């Protein structure tokens, strides 16, 4: 009846903490980590699963030389976060493996976001537009039902249990009959496929009507729109005949909310030269329109933004100042009790503060092109990313993977046009990224670097992507270090984003 009795001691006495620290005299092993100077005195250290520490230079030096004594205050922090392994405990290896698997598990799902350019036509003529658009009467730029049908076949070849179909343009509502066709066809295919199927329409809302709203309600379709700030700024950035884009957008948002639900619509902003210095006005507009947060978005070097030279209108440091001012103001709102999120920070914070990976396409390595998101153009051409088709509209077809009428799923997914940029840009093996402590928070961005420097890797010391990203990583860490309440707010944001 009695099982063996492990661990009984002969004498009832207690041993000191020192007795349990004894084995540590035989030293420790370093687990994989990276370090980068943080400020004049300190370094930031990260491991591959995104845990980080800020330590002063002498401590880092002693640590990497294997001389850090167990009674140094940093020792237990380094051990707890799995930067070192000593003979007292080996379970850290198992935990690291578990965390690495958790961070990478999204990749196993493969392509989840499928974008359909149902029409290139648009009623707006935004100078920062990333897609060269056509005036809204040219039917030649609409997707056909045959192309949609072929594209859907490819969508359901993806093994992902979650499939999100996003309608893009141009202005997709200008080809609403095709949206109806695709939604109904996808749902019918899904009766057997049983994926978690979702739909989003990215629209300026200027032309939404009751029939469209009713269709969205019945099929539980989400709406994503553009709101650049208060009326004057929004209308300046987003001209359309009648100069009434702001009014139409706000009316549209309210109609969507009352028909589909409060959180069925979200808005995105783009920062133009005119936006700089007005971040507070922009955020206030989002607060006024009762949004739960804002995504402060920089401009991208594609499409009309290049042709009109709007992209060159401000530099990284101007953008960062805009972003930091905005973040300060948002934190002020939160401190005063108004819960409001900056979504880009939330994505990065999820990487820093949780064991999960939020899977944001621009901050993934391997890059999210093709294997995270893929786009089916109006003419049946398949691109590795939205930005990839924008480049194509400018004449650079580097990211063209094939055509739904000519190529099989295997030909598209295994094409060199997809595999080469993913492989070459993989951050952990790219010069400079491989040594950068911020790599676990960052991503490979082969399309951006190809567009700006002509190759998938780019030149990191002069990369604007690198400058902006690192600036934000440092700033977020600094904010958390100096203020316990900011850390609390950030933890809440992070857990919302994953």
């Amino acid at each position, binding site marked *: 009846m009695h099982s063996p009795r492990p661990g009984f001691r002969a004498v009832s006495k207690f041993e000191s903490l020192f007795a349990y620290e004894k084995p540590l005299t035989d030293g420790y092993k370093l687990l994989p980590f990276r370090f980068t100077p943080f400020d004049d005195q300190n370094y930031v250290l990260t491991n591959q699963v995104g845990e980080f520490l800020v330590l002063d230079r002498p401590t880092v030096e002693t640590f990497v030389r294997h001389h850090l004594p167990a009674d140094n205050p940093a020792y237990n*922090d380094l051990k707890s976060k799995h930067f070192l392994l000593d003979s007292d*405990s080996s379970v850290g290896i198992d935990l690291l493996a578990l965390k690495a698997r958790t961070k990478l598990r999204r990749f196993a799902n493969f392509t989840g976001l499928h974008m359909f350019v149902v029409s290139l036509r648009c009623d707006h003529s935004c100078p920062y537009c990333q897609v060269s658009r056509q005036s809204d009467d040219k039917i030649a730029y609409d997707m056909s039902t045959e192309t949609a049908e072929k594209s859907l076949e490819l969508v359901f070849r993806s093994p992902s249990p979650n499939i999100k179909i996003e309608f893009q343009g141009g202005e997709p509502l200008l080809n609403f009959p095709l949206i109806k066709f695709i939604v109904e066809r996808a749902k019918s295919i899904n009766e057997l496929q049983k994926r978690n199927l979702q739909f989003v329409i990215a629209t300026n809302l200027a032309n939404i009507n009751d029939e469209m709203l009713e269709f969205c309600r019945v099929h539980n379709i989400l709406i994503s729109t553009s709101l650049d700030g208060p009326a004057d700024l929004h209308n300046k950035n987003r001209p359309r005949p009648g100069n009434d884009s702001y009014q139409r957008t706000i009316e549209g948002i309210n109609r969507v909310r009352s028909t589909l639900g409060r959180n069925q619509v979200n808005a995105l902003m783009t920062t133009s030269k005119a936006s700089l210095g007005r971040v507070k006005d922009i955020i206030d507009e989002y607060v006024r329109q009762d949004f739960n947060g804002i995504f402060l978005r920089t401009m991208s070097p594609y499409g009309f933004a290049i042709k009109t030279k709007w992209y060159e209108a401000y530099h990284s440091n101007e953008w960062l100042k805009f972003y930091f001012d905005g973040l300060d103001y948002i934190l002020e709102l939160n401190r005063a009790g108004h819960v409001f999120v900056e979504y880009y920070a939330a994505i990065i914070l999820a990487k820093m503060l949780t064991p999960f990976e939020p899977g944001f396409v621009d901050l993934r390595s391997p890059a999210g092109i093709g294997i995270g998101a893929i786009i089916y153009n109006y003419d049946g051409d398949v691109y590795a990313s939205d930005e990839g088709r924008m480049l194509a509209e400018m004449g650079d077809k580097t990211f063209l993977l094939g055509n739904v009428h000519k190529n099989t799923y295997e030909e598209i997914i295994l094409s060199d046009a997809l595999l080469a940029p993913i492989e070459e840009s993989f951050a952990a093996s790219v010069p400079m990224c491989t040594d950068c402590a911020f790599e676990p928070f960052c991503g490979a961005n082969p399309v951006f670097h190809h567009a700006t420097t002509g190759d998938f890797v780019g030149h990191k010391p002069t990369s604007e992507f690198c400058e902006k990203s690192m600036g934000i990583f440092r700033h977020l860490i600094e904010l958390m270090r100096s203020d316990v309440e900011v850390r609390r707010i950030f933890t809440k944001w992070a857990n919302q984003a994953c």
Partner: protein
Amino acid sequence: MLTLSGHALELKNFPSDSRGTVVRICAQKDRPFPLREREAFLVTNGEVPEGFGAYITVGKDARRSAPTGSKAIFLSDEFSYLADGDVVRIWPKNNQVRVLYRRNSHHNHFLMTERCNHYCLMCSQPPKDIDDSWIINEILQTIPLIDPSTREIGFTGGEPTLLGEDLFRILRTAKSYLPNTAIHILSNGRLFKDIEFAKRYAAIGHPDMMIGIPIYSDVSTIHDYVVQSDNAFDETIRGILNLKRLNQRVEIRMVIHQQTYKRLPQLAEFIVRNLTFVDHVALMGLEITGFTKANLDILWIDPIEYQSELYRAVSLLADSRIQVSIYNHQLCLLDKCLWPFAKKSISDWKNEYMPECEGCREKENCGGFFSSAKVRYSSHIKAFI
């Protein structure tokens, strides 16, 4: 404090050589006859229905009310709380009575063994290296007598997993007789490092069974020191990973004292990063009994002094969407924003309040003290008037 165990004033007509018997108390005078033989009737107002296996009377002058010739148990006023549906063990050899189950209580725990493979600095139930396997049968006899509408029962030790197959037998019996009763087990989790052992536990398939496992630090040396056993940290973590691999419900328990409070925020972060899938985290105040009394100098810290660590740990866990509770703390010591996490966790039979609590309007909502806290408690206890 309730007396759960003591001597009877007198036992009548029990064979003196008999082993302990486990018996359910009945206070219904119209009880169907076939059930009476196995039950002990609680005599209250002089009425003595026939046919019960035994009769219990409580109080000095109640002795005369037992029917002649029947087995009778006379108890002192300490046991006046006994009521219909409770279960007691009578041990005639040394005149002993122990209350095993109280139907009106939400705090019914069964000690499964006093043996343990830890030797914690603050153990409230110091381990004994004895053969106490008789307890297994007592529990197996008790379970069928428990009211099936009981919300929860607990199993503690010692270390219950040292029972091996007998632990699983008891849990299966509980599942069979009490399918709607939640089970809570306190274990150090080490033996679950063996996945086969963890699979046997999971195979019980109880729909509402949680196992509470202590982690006292994010650092192996400190945890091993607190439990006075090498390799405890590694084995416990591996045990938790195996249990969660098998979809078992796991709670992490942590006792805050002088040796553990400093790294409380780091422990919270460790849980968020490494064990984010646990079902509950309980951060507990010290109970001053057992080994804690002997080690009071190295354990005691006034809870007022670790409030900032507690705040950081609780907010980090809660903000990271992990269920967290504070046990065994008085509201007047806690930041108001921590009140929603504070639970009235102390078992009813040993839950008390101090003279400082006189007139406090939050007493109803406050967890109060262990009765053992008289030895030492915070010097910042203050009534909300």
